[in-house]
C-alpha cells in the first residue's frame, strides 16, 4: 500500500473508535457503570491527540515527498 493512503485509513479508524467509545460512554452512564464511563471517556480524549499526530505526520511525509 502506498504511504499516501496510510494516514487517511488510520484517521478513519481513529474516528470510528472515537464514535464507538462515545456511544458506549453514554450507554454505560445510563447503565450506571461509572468506572467504564471514566475509562471510555478517557480513551476518547486520548484518541484526539493521536488523530492530530497522525495528521501532522501525514502532512510532514507528504511535504518531504514533495507533494
Amino acid at each position, binding site marked *: 500500500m502506498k504511504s499516501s493512503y496510510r494516514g487517511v485509513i488510520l484517521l478513519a479508524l481513529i*474516528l470510528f473508535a472515537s464514535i464507538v467509545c462515545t456511544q458506549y460512554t453514554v450507554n*454505560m452512564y445510563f447503565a450506571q*457503570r461509572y468506572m467504564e*464511563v*471514566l475509562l471510555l471517556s478517557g480513551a476518547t480524549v486520548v484518541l484526539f491527540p493521536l*488523530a492530530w499526530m497522525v495528521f501532522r505526520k501525514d502532512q510532514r511525509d507528504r511535504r518531504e515527498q514533495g507533494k
Partner: protein
Amino acid sequence: MENEKTRPIPLKDDNYTHNINRSNERSLDRRSFMKTMVGAAGLFAASTLPWGALAAKELMGSSSKTFPAQKIANLSDIKPGDAIEFNYPGEHDSALFVYVKEKEYKAYQNACTHLRCPVFWDRDEKELLCPCHHGKFDIATGKPLAGPPRRPLPEIVLQEKDGAVYAVGVKRYEEQL
C-alpha cells in the same frame, strides 16, 4: 465614478453567491478531509467530558447516597391490577407502582430504557408496555421482553408499613443485571 480596472473586486465578481471561479474550489481536498476527521475526533472527545465528569461525581458520592422514604398509597385504597404513577426519587423522575395481585406489588422508574418514553401497565397482558416502539418489560424483574430496549427498568425498593406502601430506594443496574 469608480474605474472598473482600479476596483479591488471586479464588478462582475462583487456579489455574495456567484464569485467562485477557481476550479475545484468547492470540492474537499485530501488535507481538508483529514482536518475534518481530526476535528470530528476532537468533537467526540469534548462531548464525552461531561459524561466523565458526571460519572466521577456519581462515583465519589455514591457511597453516601440515600433515598428518603415516600408514601405511595394505602393498600386499602387500591385493587389488584391497579397502577399508580408517582415521582421518585426526584420530583422529575417518573415512576410506576403496580399492584400486581394480592400481596404482590412492584415499582419501576417508568422511562423506557430505549428512548425514555413513559412506560404503562398493560393490565390484560400483565406486562409493562412502552407504546413508542412497543417495548415490553417483565413486571416481576423489570427486564426487557420485546422491542428495542436492552436494559431493565430500574426497580424501586418498596416497603409495607401500617397498611401503606412506601418507596425507600432505587436499585442500581448492577444489582439487576
